[in-house]
């Protein structure tokens, strides 16, 4: 990944007219993105708060319903997202070192990881959908009972509920499950859009050690999306 032969980008890194120095511009952007991430945390904070309230009021619903989630798929997705964070961080380093090929490769890998994550999520959603495991207003007890009767014995990776009757309002868990993972998925899709935009610019050689602000900012956003999943996985899949 040598860079000495690469031509310098034609245009110098843009300095907006209202900044005195590129350093000031970089710091302003960085503070801006951090404050934006703070709003994102509070945005999800409302949902985490709803989770805490309902889990404390209806612990039995959470204990029962979480068993319908596939722990191994969730774990794989966690690993996939962690890997994407690694490649994203690597992409920032490549941009800082003006390594164009490395940057393109890392951004491509990040994008691929995000796609795998969403694919696995889609498989999980489809499974829930088929068996009537939907949010409170659409929760289909008949379909769920039929699925349980059909299975008889839990498949590997599952510990399906046994003889005691299911608690009331299991749909509440799925309301929260779909709200939290759905909002997270929307953020993953938005992140993919941003990374795709970075990739297109990286291919054209826009980024170098003089100008890598967008890569840095998007990476911060991507790490937050990853971090939120790190909390979602145990809270939803690993309840004891």
């Amino acid at each position, binding site marked *: 990944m040598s860079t000495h032969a690469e031509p310098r980008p034609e245009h110098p890194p843009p300095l907006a007219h209202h900044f005195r120095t590129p350093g*000031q511009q970089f710091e302003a952007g960085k503070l*801006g993105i951090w404050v934006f991430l703070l709003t994102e945390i509070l945005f999800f*904070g409302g949902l985490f708060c709803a989770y805490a309230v309902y889990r404390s009021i209806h612990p039995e619903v959470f204990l029962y319903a979480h068993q319908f989630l596939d722990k191994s798929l969730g774990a794989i997705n966690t690993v996939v997202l962690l890997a994407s964070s690694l490649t994203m961080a690597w992409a920032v380093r490549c941009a800082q070192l003006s390594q164009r090929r490395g940057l393109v490769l890392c951004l491509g890998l990040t994008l691929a990881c995000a796609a795998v994550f969403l694919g696995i999520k889609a498989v999980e959603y489809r499974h829930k959908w088929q068996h009537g495991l939907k949010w*409170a207003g659409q929760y289909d007890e008949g379909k769920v009972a039929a699925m349980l009767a059909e299975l008889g014995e839990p498949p590997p990776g599952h510990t399906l509920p046994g003889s005691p009757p299911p608690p009331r*309002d299991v749909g*509440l868990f799925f309301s929260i499950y*779909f709200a939290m993972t759905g*909002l997270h998925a929307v953020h993953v899709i938005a992140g993919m859009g941003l990374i795709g935009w970075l990739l297109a610019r990286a291919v054209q050689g826009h980024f170098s050690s003089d100008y890598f602000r967008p890569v840095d900012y998007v990476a911060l956003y991507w790490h937050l999306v990853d971090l939120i999943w790190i909390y979602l996985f145990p809270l939803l899949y690993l309840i004891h």
Partner: protein
Amino acid sequence: MTMAPPTGPAGEPANSPPAGADNYLTHTRGFWSWALTLDHKRIGVMYLVGILASLVLGGVFALVLRTELATPGPTIMGFPPTLADKQPEASQALAGKQPVPPEATAQGKNLYNHIFTLHGAVMIFLVIIPGIPAILGNFVLPLMLGAKDMAFPRLNLASFYLWLTGAIFFVVTLHTGGLDTGWTFYTPYSTGAGHSAATSTSIVMAVLGAFILGFSSMFTGINFIVTVHKLRPPGMTWFRMPLFVWGSYATAVIQVLATPVLGITLLLLVAERVWKIGIFDPKLSGDPVLFQHFFWFYSHPAVYIMILPGMGIISEIVSVFSRKHIFGYRFIAYSSVAIALWGFLVWGHHMFVSGMSLRAATIFSALTFTVAIPSAIKVFNWLATMYKGAIGLATPMCYALVFIFLFGIGGLSGLFLGTLAVDVHVTDTYFVVAHFHYVMFGGTLVAMLAGLYYWWPKITGRMYNDRLGRLSAMVLFAGFNLTFFPQFILGTRGMPRRYFDYTKLLGTHPEFSMLHLLSTIGAFCTAVGFALVFYCLIESLVRGRRAPANPWGGATLEWQCSSPPPHDNFPDPPEVGDPYDFSDLEYDPSVGGFVRRTVPSGRP
């Protein structure tokens, strides 16, 4: 009164910029140069036009409500013409002075609910939340900091268009009709079954509109925070910032921390309506009170979004028009931040009767009392600034005095509501309506007018008729108190809010009729006051004399650039000094404004 700024048709001042000089208004021309502008000053002006239009809309709704309440029974809403057209017997009943048919009364009630919801929603979400930060903050903040623009000009423009989109959503509900939840969108009003299709559409539209406006507010907040942190010129330390900047900064912190919670709450509300996710529905194990907690976790800090920048404006004006250094600068600055943070801990006082443990209610009540302390600190510091000052009663100062008086009443009546034992009796009465309008109209809106009159010469480059401006302040003050003081009395005597027809209450409370009539008369006086404000400002654009750079003798940086400012604000970085040191400024009649003494002399 030692200093009365000159008014009237004086000739062109000697060293004001010539008529053709390049400024931000004339820098480029054409529709797109405004629609796609990244200049914070032009964005501020676009907000000014949009928000004043919304203010007129919300004000018309208010007049309709007060007209309806002028008589105890149906006044203008009981027998809508549409009903009379469809049902001939209804119009016959009208003509023959027979009792109004019940369908007509029901329709009148629904219309009343619709109008008071829209009055609240338009005034809160479109006018007073964005008002001061978006108009005056956008225009003045970078100038006060000696900066060329906001940190993120594109984000700034985006937040204007988000505001516009949100406003369009609200206007659409005017067309679809039936929005009757109150501006708070409380569940189960907003999620209940049995709504007509039109009402469902309206609720979803209005909630999405508020969601979009939330993003507008957050983006403005992010921009302000970064601008204050990163764009201050060398020499301007945190404690050399003008107090309006402190107020705007504290506001931005709340906008960033509180608004996302409203965003997610409104999204959940839409999901609840559209997909029945059950989070707020007790039939599906949800909890409608959770909505209130979420809502007030945002909306209580939001009242400080509304009032803090207003307090910043008053701090500027009181000091400038008393020709005296602001008293207790650090206390005022810190109290803004204290209000911003403390304000997050008191939301429960909106819910004392919603179902809350006595222990929680007691804690919220105690915290509510402590949050009054920083506001009182500000009021006492303003009074101490005026004490022995050379007070000039120009229009902005008149509005500032109106603010202090009305905010004082509003703030003190808030303590009644924070007291558990009293609150239980006056909840959902006109006492709450009066308190809220004293702080939000008497506070925020009056501060916005004060700021508008104060910076109008800077924004437009024109001086208005000061006598007319002072008259408008007096008419507004009288009209306002005539409207809302009777409502305190109504409330303490048990008149519930949101009543369309109070005929049945007159048996035990015959005085309600008189008090409501007084309030309605006051509302029309207030409307006359606003008409004077608009006339005064528009007249200045046509006939006003050219404004000097520093008409009031302010020491903050925005008065160092010409009026109106050039496109880039400051050709050279301005000289940063104490923002409240007026000793070097003296009035120059040939300019019609204040100039800095060229030879620094000893202190007088």
